[in-house]
């Protein structure tokens, strides 16, 4: 509901939805049916009028952009001051392939780089430890500082903001810091985000990246935040992820609620180290999914901002307004894309992207239309970026801050979504906080139920999806055409693996052993910053796989809690 100053604001207009004439005509023109609900379970009415609630105190209203409670945006100027970052996930082939694709995207208007490592990396292995068929198929293999050097050759490290798909023990960011050191670039000039740092979301919904036990990941994340806050002050060491959980089936409100609960957990963990909230909260960042439920997603972002501002100030005790800002990257939902008639996905992606922009995201990834078939082709990735260029340059969506603010529907929906999100936070609180709730499988169970309910709605055609359960064109070849998947040339992966094993063998074995032993001993000594030692280990030419294996051994393997 909006804060209204009774001295200057006119009385709210009467709610047209309460008008008996309208109600009569509406009833005459429509069939009585089931009440409509959005994905989060909020009742959707056919018409909205002025929000009926009385204006409440500070924190319940809209305020101005950049001011508490941040409903209308986290910055006073929003896109007038700085357009959202156009940040496309890139992860394919070998480092040289990544480099060519990323440089082409930067030339095409991309303002942030995203390095998504190969699945072998995500699972904590070097390329010589996995079946070679899987290397470079969905992400770029990065095992050493030399690899990341190749990935980022010719890209100015201090001019581009980097998102690194990096999870505990954060070897990728460690290699990145070493690369900057080798290039003589001060760490204080680096900007970016450790994007897969939210180990609770990994354990819950994106198991692939969950490598080290919950307790070990917890320590590593706190150490990473601590270290980056001190040494790389413009870096966002944590990205709290609602996206994984929504992709795994959580409703939009649940995903926002779980993410905020995770943020509370991480903040409490840092406070337990005697760090003041205003030291670390300004560098908390978030990452959310954008489904095609257009208004619901906009309201989700607005409600999330308002809730986080209130949580940061009132629950966590932050007094610096920068701590209250829920800055977020958003990605259009791949789960909403369809394999059938894939060109239709272009429309879906544009609608999703509009929700993200109108919802006030700081950074946006638009999916490629062929992602329901395979990793994006170069051609489809360019179109995805141009979708953002068109929305900004031609549709001019960057001109007005929170352009839907004040819409009867959006304001009511923002309130309704806020209540749903709060209910999820309450559930997690009752389960003992996010760490405990994930450890006990509570969150996983709730997400599984939502996923099944959603799938059943598609099965029963309560949820209508073009090309899938309605408007099928299964025989139309042109409608179903897809670009060919690009693969690394035959032999390239094998040659890379051979080069890597030779490089490993050429290192001084005594030096490698000593570095490994140092890493292990710091892991055993719980009072030392372990991430600092990971940075040192990559500088000493330990590989990603060696570091993860040693820390798995010392801290325990990451085993997801699977609830079927």
């Amino acid at each position, binding site marked *: 509901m909006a804060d209204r100053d009774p001295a200057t604001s006119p009385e709210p207009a009467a709610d047209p939805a309460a008008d008996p004439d309208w109600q009569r005509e509406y009833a005459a023109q429509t069939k009585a049916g089931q009440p409509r609900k959005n994905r989060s379970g909020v009742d959707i009415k056919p018409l909205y009028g002025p929000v009926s609630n009385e204006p409440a105190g500070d924190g319940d209203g809209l305020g101005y952009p950049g001011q508490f409670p941040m409903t209308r945006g986290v910055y006073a100027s929003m896109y007038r001051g700085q357009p959202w970052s156009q940040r496309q996930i890139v992860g394919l082939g070998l480092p040289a392939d990544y480099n060519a694709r990323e440089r082409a995207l930067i030339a095409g208007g991309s303002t942030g780089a995203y390095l998504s490592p190969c699945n072998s990396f995500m699972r904590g292995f070097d390329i010589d430890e996995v079946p070679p068929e899987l290397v470079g198929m*969905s992400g770029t293999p990065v095992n050493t500082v030399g690899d990341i050097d190749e990935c980022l050759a010719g890209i100015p490290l201090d001019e581009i903001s980097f998102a690194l798909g990096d999870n505990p023990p954060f070897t990728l960011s460690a290699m990145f810091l070493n690369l900057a050191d080798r290039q003589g670039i001060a760490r204080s000039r680096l900007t970016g985000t450790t994007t897969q740092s939210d180990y609770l979301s990994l354990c819950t919904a994106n198991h692939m990246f969950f490598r080290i036990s919950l307790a070990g990941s917890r320590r590593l994340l706190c150490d990473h935040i601590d270290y980056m806050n001190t040494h790389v002050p413009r870096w966002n060491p944590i990205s709290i992820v609602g996206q994984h959980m929504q992709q795994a089936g959580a409703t939009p409100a649940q995903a926002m609620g779980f993410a905020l609960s995770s943020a509370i957990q991480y903040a409490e963990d840092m406070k337990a180290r005697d760090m003041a909230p205003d030291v670390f909260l300004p560098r908390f960042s978030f990452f959310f999914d954008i489904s095609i439920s257009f208004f619901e997603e906009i309201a989700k972002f607005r409600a999330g901002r308002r809730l986080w501002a209130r949580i940061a100030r009132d629950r966590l005790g932050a007094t610096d307004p920068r701590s209250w800002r829920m800055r977020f990257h958003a990605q259009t939902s791949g789960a909403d894309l369809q394999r059938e008639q894939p060109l239709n996905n272009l429309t879906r992606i544009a609608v999703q992207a509009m929700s993200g922009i109108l919802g006030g995201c700081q950074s946006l990834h638009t999916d490629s239309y062929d992602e329901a078939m395979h990793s994006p082709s170069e051609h489809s990735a360019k179109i995805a970026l141009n979708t953002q260029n068109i929305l900004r340059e031609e549709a001019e969506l960057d001109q007005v801050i929170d352009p839907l603010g004040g819409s009867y529907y959006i304001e009511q929906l923002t309130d309704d979504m806020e209540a749903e999100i709060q209910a999820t936070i309450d559930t997690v609180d009752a389960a003992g906080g996010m760490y405990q709730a994930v450890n006990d499988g509570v969150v996983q169970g709730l997400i599984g139920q939502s996923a099944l309910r959603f799938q059943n709605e598609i099965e029963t055609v309560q949820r209508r999806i073009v090309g899938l359960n309605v408007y099928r064109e299964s025989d139309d070849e042109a409608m179903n055409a897809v670009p060919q998947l690009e693969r690394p040339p035959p032999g390239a992966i094998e040659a890379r693996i051979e080069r890597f094993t030779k490089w490993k063998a050429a290192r001084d074995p005594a030096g490698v052993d000593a570095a490994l032993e140092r890493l292990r001993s710091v892991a055993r000594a719980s009072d030392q910053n372990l991430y600092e030692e990971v940075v040192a280990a990559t500088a000493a030419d330990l590989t990603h796989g060696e570091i993860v294996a040693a820390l798995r051994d010392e801290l325990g393997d990451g085993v997801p809690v699977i609830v079927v």
Partner: protein
Amino acid sequence: MHSPRVLMTKIGLDGHDRGSRIVATYLRDAGMDVIYTGPWQSVESVVRVAVDEDVDVIGISTLSNDYVLIPALLDALSAAGSATIPVVVGGIVPPDEERSLLEQGIARIFHPGATREDIVECVASLSAVSSTE
């Protein structure tokens, strides 16, 4: 006739398991015995479980490219003398790869959006044939 025994699994490195868990639930709800392994299985471990548990059908869920290990899985099943266990794949497989996998003997490939009815019916009929062999 015993109720169908199905191994529901993911091979390789990917961990996206929303699809495999939903399908496991569908098959279980349809009265089948479902052995659910979770992600990250090796080809060898899938064959071992399939043989030890005497399953009628193997279901492989794939999202990010792990389908490339399926030919190796078929070879390993043959080597273990279990080539008759039908393998059903669900998930994201590029169209040209799909043709190749079907030629190599995959019983069926389900795409995202496949219906519960189709999946249950397919697995039930494959398992009826499989369990009589």
